[in-house]
């Protein structure tokens, strides 16, 4: 492929090598890790289902978000707005079919029954995989050129016209075909860049800020995030940013041809979509 002259770019329908081994390995390890971190994290949240801004925050302080059960109804309270969330948040059916009071429902947490201690066991073990995996992937991707070649957003791609054009193409579900599909489009680069360089680092650093031990080592973390409870809120928001990415990611994979996309991320081989006629 590297020797192929420009005029012989692959056309739609041909099988091409799309993802390197490092990308495929990290993708699946990280997908599993993020899922475990999310589900055990929701259980940890269940131990104190209130979020605050600032250095401190406990039951007598005003939360900006809380999930509660009141009179058999589940409520998500954000600021002064209370949303009825019965069935999902606050009050939901357990695996036995009976109604349970729990901020996040049992199907969303690890373990499914209330156990802060067990959730912490999972969360802090997988935290090592998350951090070391991301670091290793970033180093490898820097060395093998993945970041420069595939993720780097070029000057042309930053132009509002180009971005607007890509948004229009996505809205019409017209995805790149043929040789154009060899490269990530700018919206993909935004999404992957946000996960790699914003959401994952943010979720890791805010997690570290919640550690009283690490606060002694790096008090600057508290300054950056505005206190431990602010860090806890940002940790939660970053986690839900990753959930939002996951939802869009899955939708795009399904729309773009799930078997071809999943094969590419498992084996590396990707069939270029046929040109529209």
């Amino acid at each position, binding site marked *: 492929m590297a020797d192929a002259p420009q005029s012989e770019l692959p056309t739609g329908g041909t099988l091409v090598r799309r993802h390197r081994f490092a990308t495929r390995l990290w993708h699946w390890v990280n997908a599993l890790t993020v899922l475990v971190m999310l589900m055990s994290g929701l259980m940890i949240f269940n131990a104190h289902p209130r979020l605050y801004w600032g250095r401190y925050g406990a039951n007598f302080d005003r939360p900006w978000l809380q999930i509660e059960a009141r009179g058999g109804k589940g409520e998500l309270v954000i600021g002064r707005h209370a949303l009825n969330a019965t069935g999902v948040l606050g009050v939901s059916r357990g695996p036995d079919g009976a109604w349970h009071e729990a901020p996040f429902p049992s199907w969303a947490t690890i373990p499914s029954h209330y156990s802060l201690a067990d959730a912490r066991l*999972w969360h*802090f073990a997988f935290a090592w995989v998350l951090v070391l995996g991301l670091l290793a992937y970033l180093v490898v991707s820097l060395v093998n050129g993945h970041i420069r070649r595939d993720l780097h957003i070029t000057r042309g791609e930053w132009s509002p016209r180009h971005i607007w054009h890509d948004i229009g193409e996505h809205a019409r579900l017209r995805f790149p075909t043929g040789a154009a599909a060899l490269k990530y489009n700018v919206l993909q680069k935004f999404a992957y860049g946000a996960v790699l360089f914003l959401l994952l680092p943010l979720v890791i650093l805010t997690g570290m800020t919640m550690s009283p031990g690490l606060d002694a080592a790096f008090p600057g973390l508290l300054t950056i995030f505005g206190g431990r409870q602010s860090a806890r809120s940002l940790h939660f928001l970053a986690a839900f940013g990753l959930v939002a990415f996951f939802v869009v990611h899955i939708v795009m994979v399904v729309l773009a041809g799930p078997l071809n996309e999943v094969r590419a991320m498992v084996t590396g081989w990707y069939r270029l979509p046929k040109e529209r006629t």
Partner: protein
Amino acid sequence: MSGVFTRRSLLSAGAAGAGGLLLGGCDRLDGDPAWRHLLGLAEPLHMGAQRLLIGRGALAPEFTAAQLSPVFRTNGNTQPDTGEWQAQAASGFAQWRLLIDGLVRRPLALPLAALQALPQRSQITRHDCVEGWSAIGQWQGPRLAAVLDMAGLQPAARYLVFHCADRFGGSPYYESIDLIDAYHPQTILAWRMNGAPLAIGHGAPVRLRVERQLGYKHAKYVMRIEARDSLSGLYGGKGGYWEDAAGYQWYAGI
């Protein structure tokens, strides 16, 4: 088109199946001793990494009086049910003695006045509960190091166990720390909080402050400090009530 629908229904069935497997699998794994042991290996890793990064003397952040929590909530036990402590409380802890024994050269029985007569350290620090909430309070008391120096630790001593007056369902509360935290400058035996004698709900007459760890390490209602060479053989053997009862990490710096 039917091909697409088949593919889609296959996929959604697959996803639902995988989700069910994952959930059931996680709960099964959660109960598997070998898996729990594997996950538990992260604890010494965290402790080692943090000790390496923090260093022995690095201080927990301290705050100003303007940053105090308006209300510092109580938690855990707020009223010990043991007769001995109740009798002491009734007389304002006038006859109360803090015992320091185990692997020490000179076992001590210190009245509250003796702790108050030692050089005092006052610090405004953040209390982080394992549940996730934080409260900022001011604590005052002698350094634990001063008391340990009076008693003289024997060379074999590795841990300090804090025996408390409160109980959970009949099990006495206790906690333990190692010598690095015991001799840390912010590790104090607090008898004052926010400018007043320590309230009953917060652990009167004396609670431990070990500022670089979570709240459950900060033993309340301390009656006795025992120097030991090992934590095994004591209650559940994991070095603390919550460590034994629920499996919380002994090193609670995270």
